[in-house]
């Protein structure tokens, strides 16, 4: 069995994973940009969390697609933050709806996007683990 090289991160099933990450990078960025540009003052916390989600997805997409040892470390961090983010914002949106009056991609654990935002970081971590360089 050949040792996985860092480039393995962006090939095979990782190709599709990165494509899905790119879709969410786009969706979250567009949503955050629109919210911040049109009515930021209405719900600053929700919109800042939207912006955070957008940054996390953009960084994760770029880091996974770059697929070097250094970018893989960035990807681990970004996907980790993503998992914490979707769990924390999901819980907050369910328990305390008043503090989050408007939607982010992570609201309701990503229910508005078919719960893909909840599953995606788990797949991301599993893929990073599977393609880790072994010696």
């Amino acid at each position, binding site marked *: 069995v050949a040792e996985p090289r860092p480039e393995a991160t962006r090939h095979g099933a990782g*190709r599709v994973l990165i494509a899905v990450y*790119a879709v969410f990078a786009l969706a979250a960025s567009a949503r955050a940009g629109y919210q911040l540009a049109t009515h930021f003052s209405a719900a600053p916390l929700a919109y800042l969390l939207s912006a955070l989600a957008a940054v996390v997805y953009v960084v994760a997409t770029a880091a996974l697609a770059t697929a070097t040892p250094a970018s893989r470390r960035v990807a681990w961090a970004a996907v980790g933050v993503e998992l914490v983010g979707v769990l924390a914002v999901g819980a907050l949106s369910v328990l305390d709806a008043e503090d989050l009056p408007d939607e982010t991609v992570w609201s309701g654990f990503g229910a508005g996007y078919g719960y893909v935002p909840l599953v995606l970081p788990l797949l991301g971590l599993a893929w990073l683990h599977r393609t880790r360089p072994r010696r």
Partner: protein
Amino acid sequence: VITWLAWATGLLSLAVGVAALVATVRGRRIDDVQLLGSAVLELALLVQGAVGVALLVRTERPVDGVLFASYLLTSVLVVPLGAFWAVGERSRWGTGVLAVAALTTGALVLRLEQIWRTGG
């Protein structure tokens, strides 16, 4: 948007996406038929994009222009970007990327039609 054109592009996206999904499951690499299907889909999306811009400029109804225009722009970009990312992968997973791109486009067209109908 024009309702029948939105339906046509939406269903075409779905067809290309499902075909690519089936091909992925069957372990097929991207072939000429899939690329041709994606090209036809992109052509339809570009027509819809041009029509959408023309309608948005002329309409007297209160449609959220920024929202509509951003969905319109995204709807023509996803398939070419997806195809570019897909052809770099000579395995079933390249076909999988095409499936993601086409199904995402279907969702965008659905939302586009909704924004046009309801205003935002």
